[in-house]
């Protein structure tokens, strides 16, 4: 079922603070990454819930990465942590249903360092490849 390289859709929900900041810094520094990555801007990673993640996966996204600020640096106190708790439960749910849990991930990034965002993107794609290899994706 594996798709042609670069034809995947990895939806990256990135917070408007460090997440977007890191993505923009990566852009300004011309750090390249796969065209599979499509960024959706949200105010805080804590705004993304299971509903959005499932909306994405059910409508053609191959994987979802939620990217927020670093620990203790969330601009809205603990939005990133709350999101992590939910995604962790979803990961367990996916495993219980017999699917890979590698298509959904939560990362952090630093606005001043574009590499952190690119690192997150690369990790998300690597994990998606693992999920595909194991035949654990929804596709």
């Amino acid at each position: 079922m594996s798709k042609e390289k670069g034809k995947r859709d990895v939806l990256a929900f990135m917070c408007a603070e460090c997440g977007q900041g890191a993505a923009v810094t990566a852009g300004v520094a011309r750090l390249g990454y796969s065209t599979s990555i499509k960024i959706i801007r949200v105010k805080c990673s804590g705004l993304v819930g299971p509903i959005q993640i499932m909306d994405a996966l059910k409508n053609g996204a191959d994987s979802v990465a939620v990217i927020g600020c670093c620990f203790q640096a969330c601009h809205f106190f603990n939005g990133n942590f709350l999101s992590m708790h939910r995604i962790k439960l979803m990961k367990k749910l996916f495993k219980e249903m017999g699917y890979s849990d590698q298509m959904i991930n939560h990362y952090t990034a630093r606005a001043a360092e574009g590499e952190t965002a690119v690192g997150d993107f690369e990790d998300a794609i690597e994990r998606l490849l693992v999920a595909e290899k194991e035949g654990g994706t929804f596709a």
Partner: protein
Amino acid sequence: MTNSSNANNIAEIDQKSKSKEKEEPRIGVFVCHCGHNIADTVDVEKTIEEIKGLDNVVEAQHYMFMCSKQGIEMVKNSIKEKGVNRTVVASCSVTQHGPTFAKAIEEEGLNKHLHFQANIREGCSWVTSKKKRPEATKKAIKLVSGAINRARKLEEVETKQIATTKAALVIGGGIAGLRATMDLANLGIPVYLVERESSIGGHMTQLYKTFPTNECPQCSISPLTNGVASHKNVTLMTYSTVKAVEGSLGNFEVKIQTKPRYVHDNCTSCGECSANCPVEVPSEWDSGMSMRKAIYKLYPQAIPSTYVRDKKVCIECQTCVNLCPVGAVDFSMKKKMTTIKVGSIVVATGYDEYDPSEIEPYHYGQEGYEDIITQLQFERMLNPVSLTGSNILRPSDGRVPKRVVMIQCVGSRNEQVGNEYCTGVCCMFGNKNAQMIKEINPKIDVIMCYIDMRTPGIYYEEFYKKSQEKGIKFIRGRPSEIEKDPITGELSVIVEDTLSLTPMEIKTDMIILSAAMVPPKGIGPLGSKLQILRMKEGFFKEFHIKMNPTKSSKDGIFLAGAIQGPKDITQSVAQAGSAAALAAAPLVRGYIEKEMIIPLIDHSNCSICGICVTACPFGALAINDEKLELNEVACKGCGLCQPVCPTAAIQLINTREDELYDEIVGITGGITNV
């Protein structure tokens, strides 16, 4: 504003949004070439071709520079001529030109929130190789269709005015904090100046001379210290630290703890107490280069001039209590907590000098290596009350050194200690102190070991030339080690002259380390109290390094001086002025404008469980009389309440579940006609 009126407002907004839904969306899409920046990687024409047939798209155009006057006119004309009521501009990031287009549509009578920005530059063309043009184009098409889908349901968001508290807090009484305080106070704003030490002035008052004019810093700063202390708008709070900060731009509530001085303000500064105090300890202020008593002042001109008792070393002999002619000494004083309300905060807590003992081969601070000192110690050696009598003498034996070697970049430009940055001012103060040595005792041989001599700016390079003329020797190379002859006790600096590629061993009897400027102790806890971000180097992070270097990551909190990274006095003063102006603006105007990006509550589906109340980081939600209520002023529109609601009864305006769904489908499906 009461909570019940908020609830009514929400009901109003609800109705308004319903009426808006009836209006057919007419979307104008504009794709920017950004010169070559986007167009070289993304096929802009093809993007337009693909998206122009999408539902509700009534205008689809591309242009070389959408942010130019002509580009903006294009957006405006589409509103005037084609009745466009939602705009999507696919260009750079929201932060860069989102506001440009939002303003443009506002000028044409549309609410600025009806604009949506698709980022196809930082998010697509700049991060994709030009060789991958087809893929990049496809990605851009997906991003634009996502944006069109998202734009379809955008609603107007009103902007409200919120009154501000006309008072400011400045944290840190060094040169930056003083300048900011003075500038704010002169604008008629009441200022609270909080200083950790017992007197104001900061590092500048520790210096012997300032470059490049070799002026006396005490003379330069005293008008400011005296001025601030006597200003009618300034409340000086020395020996104090910030304990808690709550609130947001315009209305902060800050708790400040003041340590007891054990001397009341009626102290006349006569000095009787200190003169007769039997306890003597090395002075921290003078980096151990002089002694102080248990009851003391940091330095003779210290402001406030009230003495302070060091409880830790005091033997409580009561001599001072008995001697004080005005009875100012009082051992029973307690620490006290003050709560103040301010509208803006300026953080100017400065820097610490790097502690070179971390660099093992330099042996700083080790027994037998007393003749290795830092530049700040050297400055204090020259102060009038120093142990050396302001002469240049070796700390170990009090002899006049024949040769002094200065080592630059100690703790700067050094990956091993984790500081990659250049402190930027060490070359200048190194040169200044080298010249001071030559002026005081021309017989002393002065050698500076440097990596690069960095002296940019007016009079700075000239200053370096002057050093050379004064016979100071320069060796280009970072010393690898300082050795001590076990028999003679003589120090030698091992360095390779990288210009002549000669290994050298420089015998010397005194060494001065140009230690870096590092974030001050306690910056971490202060950062978390203020809820502002730090950079990986530890300093507070500015909002934008070029465009907004004096604003912190949080609204209403500004940065002045070395807290935002190493700076010299000139830069610190300039930054302090900028921070003061920014901090003053909302206070002088008397109000701030708040965009009502708030969640809308569907009370009929709300199960009043309270999870949103718990999740809200700003305490904006509360359950009163079995009804969920929102304090819209406290709300920051983060949307944390949205995914936690088990019944989807709370939805952030313009980021509703269905709107996010539309964007997701727009991107994953590429082109979708919903």
